């Protein structure tokens, strides 16, 4: 059991982390999942998250930061409540991925890795998300939306604005 006092995570997440630190042959294996799960709850990987995870896994903060900077899904600044990730890789590009990206930029009034002033949406152009056969596709947080058109994107945005978007975590 972890002896680290939980300061920033919900009791559920802290309990999950206690468990994760015990299941692997080496404790450090829990690092990447922990960073992502912490981000899911806090919104981004803050300095406090780095320190607490380092303590839990007996690592230096620097070890954690080294790993953090490698993975494209991990971020050190808050994103919008709904992070819109538009795939423009080859299969999506052939079926209108860039048109979708331009549409999202215009509709949300923001660019790549920017957040709307109300904090509801952020936008990211991403590499292949594994939905090639149902292109063009986007992910809003972890939820996939495929076979899209600009019109369908408008409907989606309205759904999320109205709080009816799915939020897989």
């Amino acid at each position, binding site marked *: 059991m972890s002896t680290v006092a939980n300061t920033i995570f919900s009791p559920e997440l802290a309990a999950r982390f206690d468990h994760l630190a015990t299941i692997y042959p080496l404790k450090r294996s829990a690092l*990447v999942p922990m960073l992502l799960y912490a981000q899911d709850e806090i919104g981004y990987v803050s300095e406090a998250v780095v320190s607490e995870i380092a303590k839990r896994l007996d690592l230096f903060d620097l070890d954690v930061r080294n790993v953090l900077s490698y993975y494209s899904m991990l971020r050190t600044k808050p994103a919008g409540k709904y992070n819109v990730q538009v795939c423009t890789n*080859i299969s999506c590009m052939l079926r209108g991925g860039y048109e979708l990206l331009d549409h999202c930029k215009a509709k949300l009034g923001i660019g790549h890795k920017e957040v709307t002033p109300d904090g509801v949406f952020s936008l990211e152009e991403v590499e*292949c998300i594994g939905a090639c056969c149902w292109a063009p596709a986007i992910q809003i947080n972890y939820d*996939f939306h495929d076979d899209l058109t600009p019109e369908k994107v408008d409907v989606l945005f309205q759904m999320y604005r109205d709080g009816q978007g799915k939020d897989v975590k």
Partner: protein
Amino acid sequence: MPTLVSHPDEVKVVSRRFGMGAAEIERYIELDGYKAVQQAIAEGPEWIINTMKASGLRGRGGAGFPTGMKWSFVPKVSEKPKYVLVNGDESEPGTCKDHVLFLHDPHSVIEGTMIAGLAIGSKLGFIYLRGEYRYLLKIVEKAVADAYAKGFLGKNIFGTGVDFDIITQTGAGAYEVGEESALMESLEGKRGVPRIKPPFPAVVGLYGGPTVINNAETIANAPHILLMGGEAYAKLGTERNGGTRLFGISGHVERPGIYELPMGYSLRKAIYDVAGGVKDGKKLKAVVPGGASCPVLTADEIDVGLDFDQMGKAGTMLGSGGIVVLDDTVSIVEFALRTISFYQHESCGWCIPCREGTDWIKKTLTRVHAGGGSKKDIDNVQYLAENMMGRTFCPLGDAAAMPTLGFVKKFRKEFEEYIEGNKAGTPIITVEQLVGAGH
């Protein structure tokens, strides 16, 4: 939600349970689930490996290494624990087959992991999914929990005295982690940079122990092969290319989707019959036949069988089975730039030829695409790509160089015309002006 498609030419082995609710353990059991693993326990490791060898199954991740042989390389006696690691970090552009597999038949991946574990004498398996596949990870996690609840995983599985555990793991966004040694690094909580080989993972792998690493589709085939027999599976395909595989046909086709076709099936038929032909009746221009890293085939090169050897002879690769179809409206200059931009973004930076090569090819093609290129740029791109080949720890360098070489060699005329057509009035743009261009 991914739509399921089907075609009469399909031979369904690994996709047999798709759309049948087999993510639920009771349904999976009804559909012959967890029978193969019990037979494997009864028959023993040698039988498993011999059956897998007889099946002619080759790795479905892209490299096509014979699975039975890979399993047989693991030392029988080892001081360190042995591991099975399932690669579900599916990230090759054009590839989404494991997406459907995890969604519709997660237990087949679990059962295959157990079979691999029995074959090599391992007691612990890992199933690693890319971070973006969170909803699929949930499905796999539930399937694993259900298998534990039934006593199929854990101590004394099926009451046979055998122990086997499975841990599921999420990535957090990194194409490079799909490479087997980088995958192990990631699972050990580190940056996903590749390890030098040898030693190969079968000898020194995860946590220093002997490790078998297989693609999720490869692993999911194992239970089917044990139930139907190695020879019967082999017969579905061509010589040295046993069985069937999941092909993901995407891009400019009428009916994109995941189809399970026998190995050796005609690429032309896959495009024109199975996927319904080029979208909107347009003309075919080119095909990227096995994920973004495979050299492109032109429209008159598609009379080739979809197996590892025939595709190799045709100067390309079967790769991950992701067939990307391009109609004649596509600019190869733009497509080549998008492809290299991906590899430049994903290069982990560990090996200089890959880090610098992808970056300079991207910069050069960005200039060409922007209208400021010169013919010498085409030679430079080719020179850079040729010098990346075989000079990196992992195949990412090759994966970036191979398609690039394909584009500039097969479509050189288009590059030249593009540059010629833009010459009038367009000043040469310096690379410095373009640094930071693209995304």
